[in-house]
């Protein structure tokens, strides 16, 4: 009987080694170890074996069963491991995956949202105003007297008794008049200038206005907040520089330059070799504007800033012609997803 068992084992070693797929292995498992398999049959016959041989034969038959089981398991593992490494015929994982070809936001909107998000994180609210403004909100309340040359910089479109706003600053007045500080707003919007179009000018463009009015607001705070803004927008290595300038509705007024992101301030074509790029205008809100809004200009002070969305987008993406923004060529738009 022991010989028979060893013969079964030998046979199993041979057939398992030669088995070529998992299905054959499963058949072999049934053949040797199944309900009526060869080893099972032998073990069923154990009852007729003389008592003194029982332990010996029982032990051998168990060993044979375990060995065959181990051989089968090992062979299955080998085959499965092999199967994982072999691709079916015609399989090509380099074919593109199934994608949803999503559309996307316009770069000008994206920049506008990025700006607004930073200031909302700093505690500013969003305000809006009409595109068709009165002369009062667009000019007079902002300290532009009638027939003053300061209006020259803002060539104006007229629509009956209204103007198309030349800047987003009227929103300052609309938000502040007859209300009590503190105020802290970001006001994005489209603005209009009656000038001819070239690579850097368009008769419509977009601005984001920001202003903060409270007790004890100082020019140093304006520098602080714009510094934070530019570092969040362009990166921590960005430096800012403030130069005196003139706007009728702020005093002191400043132009803000930032270090060029393309040459790290060393000078290149984009910054005209200066290392700096003009980014926005700002200043302390002129007391005359606060007075026009019936705000106590001795108790409250504030700052305001206004940036051109196009200018920032041109710079951020290295675009050299503002007209691309308004052509809406999808080959352009899909670059900003």
């Amino acid at each position, binding site marked *: 009987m022991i010989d028979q068992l060893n013969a079964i084992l030998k046979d199993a070693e041979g057939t398992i080694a030669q088995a070529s797929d998992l299905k054959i292995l499963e058949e072999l498992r049934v053949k040797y170890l199944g309900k009526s398999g060869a080893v099972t049959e032998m073990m069923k016959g154990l009852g007729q074996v003389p008592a003194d041989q029982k332990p010996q034969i029982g032990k051998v038959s168990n060993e044979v069963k375990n060995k065959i089981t181990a051989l089968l398991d090992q062979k299955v593992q080998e085959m499965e491991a092999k199967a994982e490494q072999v691709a079916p015929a015609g399989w090509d994982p380099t074919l593109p995956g199934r994608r949803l070809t999503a559309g996307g936001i316009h770069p000008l909107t994206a920049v506008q949202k990025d700006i607004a998000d930073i200031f909302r994180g*700093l505690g500013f609210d969003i305000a809006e105003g009409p595109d068709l403004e009165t002369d009062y909100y667009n000019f007079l309340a902002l300290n532009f007297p009638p027939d003053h040359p300061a209006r020259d910089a803002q060539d104006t479109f007229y629509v009956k008794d209204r103007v198309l706003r030349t800047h987003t600053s009227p929103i300052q007045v609309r938000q502040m008049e007859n209300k009590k500080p503190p105020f802290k707003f970001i006001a994005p919007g489209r603005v209009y200038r009656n000038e001819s179009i070239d690579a850097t000018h368009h008769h419509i463009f977009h601005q984001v206005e920001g202003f903060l009015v409270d007790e004890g607001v100082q020019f140093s705070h304006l520098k*602080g907040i714009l510094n934070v803004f530019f570092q969040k927008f362009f990166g921590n290595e960005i430096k800012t520089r403030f130069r005196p300038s003139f706007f009728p509705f702020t005093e002191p007024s400043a132009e803000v330059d930032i270090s060029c992101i393309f040459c790290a301030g060393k000078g290149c074509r984009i910054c005209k070799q200066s290392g700096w790029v003009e980014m926005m205008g700002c200043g302390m809100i002129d007391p005359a504007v606060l007075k026009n809004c019936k705000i106590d200009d001795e108790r409250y002070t504030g700052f305001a800033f206004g940036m051109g969305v196009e200018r920032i987008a041109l710079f951020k993406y290295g675009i050299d012609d503002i007209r691309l923004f*308004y052509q809406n*060529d999808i*080959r352009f738009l899909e670059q900003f997803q």
Partner: protein
Amino acid sequence: MLISFNWLKKYVAVTAPAEEVVNHIIHAGVEVANVRHPGQNITNVVVAELLSVEKHPKADRLSLTKVSTGSETFQVVCGAKNIAVGQRIPLAKVGAVLPGDFKIKEAKIRDVESFGMLCSAKELGLAEDAEGILILPSDAPLGQDFLSYMGLPDTLFELEITPNRADLLSHVGVAREVGALFNLPVKTPVAIKLAESKAATASKVKVSIEAKDLCQLYTCRVIEGIKVGPSPLWLVQSLEKIGQRSINNVVDVTNFVLHELGQPLHAFDLEQIHGSQIIVRKAKKGEKIPLLDKTERELKEEMLVIADADRPVALAGIMGGANSQVTEKTQTILLEAALFQPGTVRKTARQLGIATDSSYRFERGVDPLGVQAALDRAAALIVEVAGGLMTQNIISVETTTFKSAQVQFRTARTNAILGTNLSEEIQLQILKNLGCKVEKAGAAYQVECPSYRLDLSREIDLIEEIARLTGYDNIPVVAPRISAALSDIRSGIPGEKEIRSTLHQAGYFEAVNSTFLPPNFADKLKLAADHLYRRSQEVDNPIADDQKVLRPTLLPSLLANTQLNLSHQRESVALYEINKVFTLGTDGQVAERFHATAVLAGQAPHAGWTNPARKADFYDIKGLAEDLLAACRVENISWEFNQAASPYVPTQSFIVKNAAGRVILTGGALNPKVLKEYDVNAPCFALEVELAVLAATPKKRQSYMALPKFPEAWRDIALVVPEGVTAAQIVAAVEEQGKPLLKQVELFDLYKGPNLPAGMRSLAYRLSFRADDKTLTDKEVSDKITQIVEHLKTRYAIALR
């Protein structure tokens, strides 16, 4: 405005190099657009005279010249055509160096020897562009070094002066600024006391001001016996360097003093002044004036003129009249220096479309206390360069006496506004450097501002000056403490977020277009006469005729964008814009609203290798509308079909209204005639959302519903539907009959074809049933299906397939 550094140094002894001066003034808030260095890197160029000009023996286009420097004669080959014997020209001798390190050597040009080069202004670096050789005045001294003759080398600053700094519109003004920045004294030019004749000026001319509110001060002098002619070299040089053309000695002096002191002046030929009378008055109706620019202008009644007894002889502060101009024959001049009200000068100049150096300065404001000094300075210079004698005394008519601005100033306020810690001493020193007079007045200071700084009249103005001159770099950088008061301001356009994300998922790109449309847009869209979009408003002063109308719809711009993209062989164009539209209300007011408009043309988006391309159709744009409405969770809306007018095809259109009957959106296939107008050669679909109506439409509350406890059973039914029965009717009937077990009806197939009787189509639905309290049996579901099918059969003659 051009400022010559050499000229500037006459008034302030600045020793710093030009670069440092530029750097300082930039940081003080003056934009420097350009810095040029005429005459730099030039050696060995002298004044020479052309002795002969002949054709080059071997080259038609070249000349062979002989030139003399007075002591030497050279043979020079020259290519220019503007030369003639007797002219004086700049000669670059052998060994000379021109800008760009261009060295002049002996040369053989087409076998002829040439010793030097005759120079153009461009070759000398004096002009960007120049044709021909620079011809010098005939009195240019032979042999003199060309640079010293021209007052070169020099540095020219091109400054851009902000409208508040009228005081910087002259060399003395810039000198004051440089003096304040470098802490240097400024010498203003003083008129040398010149002899006056016995004759009283008042006996020569009578001056009166009628328009008292438009002219604060009118001063003048009379100079007799002058000789009008060319200006001396120093005067020509000074003006030409800063881009001013020399005209004659009298006009050049007035121009020189304008650029020196900032006070515009005008010289009249007194013999042409009728009645020996100067009247400053408003123009009379229909009055005309011939101007120095050789045009004749008709004047409006509010325009300020200088008139004689009969007629206007100058447009006050803007331009002189041709009827009284100084000519070679002029012997007696009336020299005017006045103060005109800035607003009137600006208004008239703009109305007539004239801008002069004079009007530019009057508009911004000239120094009220500098008028007489400028008059005397100019009179003295005229006598110096044109001879003659001044009559006795100045005439000065004043309507308003100028008072210097007095400002209460607190040094603590400076630090409170700027966030600085500047000492009292530093602050006061800056004000004094600027020409302010400072006196202690209690706890504060009383500051008298200089008359030439009309922009200084309030404490904040002085604080700005202190900030400017200490440098903005010296103001600290501090993070503000932002008070956390809550506001009730809502952010952004309602629904914008949901609409954008739906559109982006659907493959649409955002477009941004101009607000202006051509007036024919309504005809191109084939709009009915009473269409809302025909109630549009035009801009009074459009940039061009085709950009006149404030757009009442975003569609035309998006169609133009579509055309552009299709023209690039793009097969699928899906664009949207969210922006303001403008319509004229019945009240005559222009209303601003937000639209979200989407356009789809060509193929449907999302085609790929597992999702074959197909043409976009009505159901793409309808599906987009459904997705948008679902994303916005609007409630109680109704759909209308076959109702929308052009630009849509009515039978392929939809209008979605809210319970109040207001239109949330309109969409469908665009009229092919409209597409033809926009050269869109592909089927095109659009939808327009009224964002305000969308915002006002009630939204479904988002609330949790318990998950079902019992399983769902579903059955598929394929129906053969006769013509005229709509999907909406079928679904309504199925839903009605399926109550309460039917939970969902979903179309999964549509078939039309040869296997069906003519006019019939087959719709296949999956119906899902569920009870909330038990698992449905097969029979319960089958009974429901039978009921539904029976109903469809009797009600609509629909059969099972």
